[in-house]
């Protein structure tokens, strides 16, 4: 039963062939069997999940009209507040915190009858690309347990890839949904900035952060996207417009006559051979389906990584000032006579990990007087140029495409002491965040040199998220008929499968 897609599970529930309690229990059993190896979850809320499942089963029996994915279980990235359930953002500074409120994403999931099974592991405060920066230890890639699942939403991606959950929520500030989706062989979407409310999403870089869906198929991802998105007065940057028709786009999936732009700067040198090969093959598939492939030039993308690693740390140095040991979370060094400032400094030393400290210090430097214009100011101007490059490129193409990440999943520990090497993994995903547009990663096959999944990235203009699903569904169907079976069927068995 856990091998079904979320759409099939929803269908079985609607036809009374199963119950949400049965479905949820099957996934909790799977988690119990394999999560000791994968370590996707920081907290499994079995009791809460079964209570939600019983409730949705009762509502269904009474004839209530339910959402398309009511009763389907889900894994939630630990960056989103859920009332009464431990929420840490992967940080020791929030160990034991139980939020007194629900984030808007969680409220929407609950209203839709989606069963939240637990909180997934992540790089601390979403700062990282491998989940190794979690304060609670890394998550392991279900394809090869010696490798990272990517990050920062590595726990959510690994949970879906390992059939511990059919759906998961992540967040994407510089690629943190798309890159782990690519490295674990699943689908992940970063919606348009402002499409999904950030209320209750623990902030890293507020002008870049956006929550979004993971699934094993394009349609499953669309079903979750539709439930999560929508205007929210509690988030002033939330877009007040109808949610794009992502589900119907995922069902139609036709690319005939569409123009697909290949970004010159996001391929070739620096991209692993098998990554480039699967990308090129996918382009041929799209062309054979009737799309027109054009090349587009985005010269400022060369500076996107540099701009991102100034803007995000600058915003985080301000956002993380709230962890001050006064109102919630950890407090250390509170001895008789200790000043508030000393307690704050001791707590932040004890509670924050290395990468978080590194980024706060970098941001503090970039924003300090004398350096502001040269660093943060220049980065903001590069951001303008990136937006202009996209605008020009979207004048020539309906969607833009690239490999999602330059490499397949790397070994745990391989890049942990080399921050620049780690940052380079985000080179293809970051421009989307800087421009506030939307992007999807879906599996394009396995790299021949290591038999690990490769991600194909699709990008569309703001609030044109349906185009991602239209192109994604079309490519997915064509690749599936080539392969004969879903890509995850090629993953090695985990204990208990």
């Amino acid at each position, binding site marked *: 039963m856990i091998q079904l897609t979320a759409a099939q599970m929803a269908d079985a529930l609607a036809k009374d062939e199963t119950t949400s309690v049965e479905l949820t229990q099957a996934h909790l059993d799977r988690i119990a069997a394999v999560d000791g190896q994968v370590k996707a979850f920081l907290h499994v809320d079995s009791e809460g999940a079964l209570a939600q499942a019983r409730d949705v089963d009762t509502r269904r029996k009474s004839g209530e009209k339910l959402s398309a994915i009511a009763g389907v279980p889900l894994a939630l990235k630990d960056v989103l507040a859920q009332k009464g359930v431990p929420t840490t953002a992967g940080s020791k500074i929030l160990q034991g915190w139980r939020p007194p409120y629900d984030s808007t994403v969680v409220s929407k999931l609950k209203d839709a009858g989606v069963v939240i099974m637990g909180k997934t592991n992540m790089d601390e405060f979403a700062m990282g690309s491998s989940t190794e920066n979690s304060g609670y230890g890394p998550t392991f890639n279900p394809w090869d347990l010696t490798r990272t699942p990517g990050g920062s939403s590595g726990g959510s991606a690994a949970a879906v890839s390992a059939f511990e959950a059919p759906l998961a929520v992540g967040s994407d500030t510089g690629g943190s949904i798309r890159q782990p989706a690519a490295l674990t062989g699943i689908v992940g979407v970063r919606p348009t900035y402002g499409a999904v409310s950030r209320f209750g999403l623990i902030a890293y870089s507020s002008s870049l952060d956006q929550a979004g869906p993971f699934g094993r198929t394009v349609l499953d991802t669309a079903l979750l996207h539709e439930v999560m998105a929508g205007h929210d007065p509690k988030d002033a940057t939330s877009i007040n417009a109808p949610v794009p028709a992502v589900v119907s786009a995922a069902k139609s999936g036709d690319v005939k006559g569409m123009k697909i732009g290949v970004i010159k700067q996001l391929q070739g040198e620096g991209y692993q051979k098998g990554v480039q090969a699967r990308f090129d093959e996918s382009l041929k598939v799209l062309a054979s389906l009737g799309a027109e492939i054009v090349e587009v030039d985005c010269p400022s993308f060369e500076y996107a990584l540099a701009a991102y690693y100034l803007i995000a740390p600058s915003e985080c140095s301000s956002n993380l000032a709230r962890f001050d040991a006064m109102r919630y979370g950890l407090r250390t060094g509170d001895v008789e006579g200790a000043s508030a400032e*000393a307690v704050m400094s001791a707590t932040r*030393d004890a509670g924050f990990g290395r990468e978080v400290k590194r980024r706060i210090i970098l941001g503090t430097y970039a924003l300090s007087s004398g350096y502001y214009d040269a660093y943060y100011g220049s980065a903001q101007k590069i951001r303008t140029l990136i937006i202009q490059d996209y605008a020009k490129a979207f004048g020539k193409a309906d969607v833009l495409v690239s490999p999602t990440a330059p490499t397949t999943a790397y070994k745990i520990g391989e890049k942990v002491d080399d921050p*620049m090497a780690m940052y380079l993994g985000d080179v293809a995903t970051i421009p989307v965040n800087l421009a506030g547009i939307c992007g999807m990663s879906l599996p394009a096959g396995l790299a021949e040199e290591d038999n690990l999944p490769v991600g194909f990235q699709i990008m569309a203009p703001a609030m044109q998220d349906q185009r991602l699903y239209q192109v994604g569904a079309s490519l997915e169907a064509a690749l599936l008929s080539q392969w004969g079976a879903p890509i995850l069927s090629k993953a090695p068995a985990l204990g208990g499968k």
Partner: protein
Amino acid sequence: MSSLSRDDVAKLAGLARIEMTESELVELSSQFGMILDAVARVQEMDLSGVKATSHPQPLENIARPDVVLPSLSPDEALSGAPAQEESRFRVPQILGEAE
């Protein structure tokens, strides 16, 4: 090659209210040169006449009618407090310390 000395890092850590051990200061100072060189690439392009973007959405201030909406009760708001007293957050001494 950019660089940031151990003392520069210590000053920044003080501004950011993060107490750091000697080994952390040394490690960060040794990594900073490389990171600063990489991010300093933003200065390579001619940016004269380019406007800065602070945010991807062209938003004006967002206001709402000034009406009372449901909010957390004092007990809920204090539920995660490291220390509390008389329905208030209890904080360490903020004035009069010798620093």
